[in-house]
C-alpha cells in the first residue's frame, strides 16, 4: 500500500469504512491542499527572506515597517495588494491561452511537490518513476511559459518566453545526466528508495559516493537547476534591464501572482530534489541526531539550498546568451557524460 494512504488510515481510521475511490480522492485532495499551504507559506517567507538577504548583502536593511519585527508581514501586505489589483488582458491578446498559461505554470510547480519525500511515511505519491516524473513536470512549465509569452501579444513577452524555453530545455540534459549518475548506484527511480539507500551517517550520502565523482555531479545538478528555474546568473529570460519582465510583462494582479508563486515553488522543488538525491533527504547527518524528526531535516537542508540560490543571485552578474549556451553544451554536458562513464568504469572494475 502507498505510504500516504497508510499514513492517513492510521491518522483517521474511519476512512477505512469509506468506498476506496472516495477515500483515495479525499486523501489526495487533502495532500494537495497541504502542499499548497506549504507553497504559500514558503513563498511568503522566501520572498521576505530574499529581500532581507539582498538588502544585507548590499549593506541596506530592507523592508522594516509592516508588521513590526523586521517587516515580517511585508509579503502578506504585497499579496493582499495583488489580490485587489485590476486584471488586465491586453487587446489583441489570445484571451484563452493568456488565461490558461499561469494555471499551467503553477499547476506544474505544485505537481512537482507530489513526489517529494518529507519523511519515510509521508510522501504524497511514491511513484516508481519519481525522478523521471520530476523531469516530465518541468517540461509542462516550459509549455506554460511559451503559452503565456506568446498569448500576450507583446514583443518583450515573446522574446523572454523563447529565451526561457530554449534555456530550460538545454539545461534539462545536464540535470538528467547528473541525476543518472546517482541512479546508477542506487538502482531505483523512486524518491523514497533513493533516500533509504543513503541511510547511515553523513558519509553514506550520495554526494560522498565515489568521491569526488558524485560531488561533481551534484555541482552540475545545482548549476543546471539554477538555469531551470531562471535564477541569476541564468536569469536572462527575465532580465528586467533588457526585457522588462520577460514572459510575464503583460500579466497583472492574481495571474502575475501565480507566475511568481510558481517560480518560488520551483526554487523549493529543485532544492528538495538536490536534498533527496544527493544530501540524504530526511536522514540526519549523524546517528545521535536522529531524535530530530525527518521533515525538519528535509526542510532544513532544502532551505539551505534555497539560501545558497539567493546568495548566488546577489553575488553573480548575469550571463550573456552565448555564454549561457556555452556553459550548457560545452561545459556541463561533456562533464556529466564523463562522470557517468567514469562511475560505470569504477563500478565494473
Amino acid at each position, binding site marked *: 500500500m502507498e505510504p500516504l494512504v497508510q499514513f492517513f488510515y492510521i491518522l483517521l481510521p474511519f476512512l477505512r469504512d469509506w*468506498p476506496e*475511490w472516495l477515500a483515495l480522492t479525499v486523501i489526495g485532495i487533502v495532500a494537495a491542499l497541504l502542499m499548497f499551504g506549504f507553497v504559500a507559506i514558503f513563498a511568503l517567507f522566501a520572498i521576505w527572506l530574499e529581500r532581507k538577504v539582498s538588502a544585507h548583502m548590499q549593506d541596506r536593511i530592507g523592508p522594516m515597517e509592516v508588521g513590526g519585527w523586521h517587516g515580517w508581514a511585508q509579503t502578506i501586505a504585497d499579496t493582499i495588494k495583488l489580490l485587489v489589483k485590476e486584471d488586465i488582458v491586453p487587446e489583441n491578446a*489570445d484571451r484563452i*491561452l493568456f488565461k490558461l498559461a499561469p494555471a499551467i505554470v503553477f499547476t506544474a510547480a505544485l505537481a512537482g511537490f507530489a513526489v517529494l519525500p518529507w519523511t519515510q511515511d509521508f510522501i504524497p505519491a511514491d*511513484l*516508481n*518513476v519519481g525522478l*523521471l*516524473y520530476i*523531469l*516530465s513536470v*518541468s*517540461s*509542462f512549465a*516550459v*509549455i506554460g511559459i*511559451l*503559452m503565456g509569452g*506568446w498569448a500576450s501579444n507583446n514583443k518583450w513577452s*515573446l522574446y523572454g518566453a*523563447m529565451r526561457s*524555453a*530554449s534555456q530550460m*530545455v538545454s539545461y*534539462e540534459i545536464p540535470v538528467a545526466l547528473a541525476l543518472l549518475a546517482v541512479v546508477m548506484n542506487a538502482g531505483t*527511480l523512486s524518491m523514497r528508495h533513493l533516500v533509504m539507500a543513503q541511510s547511515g551517517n553523513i558519509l553514506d550520502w550520495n554526494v560522498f559516493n565515489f568521491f569526488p565523482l558524485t560531488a561533481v555531479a551534484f555541482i552540475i545538478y545545482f548549476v543546471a537547476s539554477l538555469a531551470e528555474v531562471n535564477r541569476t546568473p541564468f536569469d536572462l529570460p527575465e532580465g528586467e534591464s533588457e526585457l522588462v519582465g520577460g514572459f510575464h510583462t503583460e500579466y497583472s494582479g492574481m495571474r502575475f501572482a501565480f507566475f511568481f508563486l510558481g517560480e518560488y515553488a520551483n526554487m523549493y522543488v529543485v532544492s528538495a530534489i538536490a536534498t533527496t538525491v544527493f544530501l540524504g533527504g530526511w536522514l540526519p547527518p549523524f546517528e545521535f541526531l536522529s531524535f530530530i524528526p525527518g521533515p525538519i531535516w528535509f526542510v532544513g537542508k532544502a532551505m539551505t539550498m534555497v539560501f545558497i540560490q539567493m546568495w548566488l543571485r546577489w553575488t553573480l552578474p548575469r550571463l550573456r546568451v552565448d555564454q549561457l549556451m556555452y556553459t550548457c553544451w560545452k561545459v556541463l554536458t561533456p562533464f556529466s557524460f564523463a562522470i557517468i562513464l567514469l562511475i560505470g568504469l569504477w563500478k565494473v572494475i
Partner: protein
Amino acid sequence: MEANQILFIAIALLTVLSAAMVAFSNKLIHSAFALLATFTGFAMLYVYLSADFLAVTQIVVYVGGILILILFGVLMTHKIYSTTKKTAHNSLIVSLLGGILSAGLILFIISKAPWAPLLAKGFNPTTAIIGKEILTGYLLPFEIISVLLLGALIGAIYIARAEDK
C-alpha cells in the same frame, strides 16, 4: 459503473477531443497547444496500461521535446496568427481512401490484439524490466537506435542549417 471506468472515459474523451481540436482548429498555434492535452491524455492512458515508465517518457519526450520543437517551428513561420491551414493535395478521393485504409488497419489490430490478459496483470514497476530487456533480448535494435538517432541528429541539423543560409 466503477469510478475507475468513469475516469478512463474522461481521459479518453480528453485525448480524442483535443486531437480533434488539433485537426480542426483554424489557427496553427491553437493546434500546437491543443497537442499538449493530447500528449498528456496519451500518457494517462499508458498509466492505465500499467506502463509507468512509458507514461513519463511520453511526457518528457513528446511534451518536453517534440511539442517545443513544433512550437518553435510554428513561431518561425510568417504571420502565425492569420495563417490558415492548407494542404497541397486536396483530393477528396485520395484522403478518403487513406482514411479508410488506416481505419481498417487499426480495426484489424484491435481485433487481433490479446487485450484482456494484458490488463489483468496488474500494476508492476516496469523500468527495471525494460532495462534488462534492452540489454539482453533487444540488444541489436537498441544499438541500431543509437545509429538512427545519430543519423537523425546530423540530417536534421544539416537541413536546418541549409534553411538558414
